[in-house]
């Protein structure tokens, strides 16, 4: 069951008013304008034992993504394709609001939005992951680990996931006479075939204002958010409204336009980290 969440009164009314009066002037408490994300820092290769990894920081928000790769069986309806699975954990060290236990609806939604943003546009060429079509394929696990939560987990997670996938190398393997695949994870082989780079841009609605990359304080006073997935050609490759309020038709279309523009900041940080990594 999905239940109306308890909103912590972290930001009292008077604070909300001061945020709004800044928005009215096109400004925000941390010096940003409404349509610019926070400082983005991405680092790849942070977990040597993972086949790919990255940490993405958006202001104080920190998300680590690890890619693990193993051999497995394909799904029956896609026998010639590898399998991509995205999983997210809101570990309790990231926020006083997170509790130990299986992923709650927020973690599930996050993982599924990241998963679809990768899957629907074909970001990873899954058909390049067949070892013996119909029998043995590579299984990719993308594990998102939220380490510090200061708002906008979607964009930080998507950046970490994308960077980790770009960082990943398939392990070397041998095919035994018995047909079994022996994987040697100590030897890193080919990079994954990534056909599209995707980011999400999250836009919060606070009263009549649309603001990009909200902090946790801003999320607390926001009515709703829309997450827009964009590729490097600025095509819209996914979207999700989230939060307990509605948005007008105009707000949604305007948010999509803002997302295209703001995605440039994320792509710049992503591409720099990859060329450096």
């Amino acid at each position: 069951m999905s239940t109306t969440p308890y909103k912590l009164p972290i930001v009292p009314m008077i604070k909300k008013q001061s945020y709004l009066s800044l928005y009215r002037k096109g400004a925000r408490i941390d010096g940003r304008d409404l349509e610019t994300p926070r400082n983005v820092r991405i680092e790849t290769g942070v977990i040597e034992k993972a086949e790919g990894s990255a940490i993405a920081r958006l202001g104080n928000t920190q998300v680590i993504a690890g890619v693990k790769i193993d051999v497995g069986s394909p799904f029956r309806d896609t026998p010639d394709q590898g399998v991509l699975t995205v999983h997210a954990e809101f570990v309790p060290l990231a926020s006083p609001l997170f509790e130990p236990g299986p992923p709650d609806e927020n973690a599930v939604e996050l993982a599924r939005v990241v998963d679809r943003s990768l899957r629907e546009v074909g970001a990873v060429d899954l058909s390049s992951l067949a070892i013996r079509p119909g029998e043995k394929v590579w299984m990719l696990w993308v594990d998102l680990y939220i380490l510090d939560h200061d708002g906008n987990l979607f964009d930080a997670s998507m950046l970490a996931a994308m960077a980790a996938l770009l960082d990943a190398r398939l392990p070397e393997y041998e095919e035994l006479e018995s047909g079994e695949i022996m994987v040697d994870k100590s030897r890193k082989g080919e990079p994954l075939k990534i056909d599209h780079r995707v980011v999400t841009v999250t836009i919060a609605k606070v009263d009549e204002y649309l603001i990009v990359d909200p902090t946790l304080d801003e999320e607390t006073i926001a009515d709703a958010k829309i997450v827009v997935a964009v590729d490097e050609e600025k095509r819209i490759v996914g979207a999700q409204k989230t939060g307990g309020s509605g948005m007008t038709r105009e707000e949604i279309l305007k948010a999509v336009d803002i997302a295209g523009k703001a995605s440039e900041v994320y792509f710049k940080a992503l591409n720099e980290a990859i060329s450096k990594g």
Partner: protein
Amino acid sequence: MTVKHAGLRLIDEKGLRHDGRRPDELRPVAMRVGVLSNADGSALFEIGKTKVLAAVYGPREPPQRHTMLPDRAVLRVRYHMAPFSTMDRKSPAPSRREIELSKVIREALEPVVIAELYPRTAIDVFVEVLQADGGTRTAGVTAASLALADAGIPMKGLVAGVAVGKVDGVIVLDVDELEDSAGEADLPIAAAPDIGLITLFQLNGVLSRQELEEAVEMGLSAIRRLVDMEKETLRSSVTVMPGE
């Protein structure tokens, strides 16, 4: 699991869909309220082969008192599929998809329910998919809207939803399971036309800015018709529309 139908033509030379519909045509729709005796409100919504039942209990005391809110009712929503609703039997344990859709449907209803009238209570909405042939989440929103009204829960407006999609390059209304799995994009949308708000909005797939706008228009137009049918149904208790 859905099978991708490679090479399948979904729009024929006359511009009609695999089941003969025009791109902007809904499947046959039926609405009925008051279908259950125990629930405070209930509704059955059918669109094509998709059949969704919704029931509302409340406002009532929530079983876990710590979920109560001092200034409003909590809305509790469960979207669930019957094991026999799908081609392959669905395990009764809640899937990750069902967990996400319960949240998405709750957030599609929150904007219209006037929860402030019932502090320290819960309003429970149970959505059961009896048969799934595409558009079950938006059908769930529509059924839930009817059931809430049937239960007498005060609302700012009725909500309805529909899945718009893109198949063979064409924006189409009310995609069924085949079109959803073989198509290029799926855009479930729900709205409360009386207050001018879109309350559910998802896009799975790739659309250009212009296609997106076209899809939203097509969805909102159908939603207005569905909400009119809801009003009619609530007056008369049953409404059937045999396809457009």
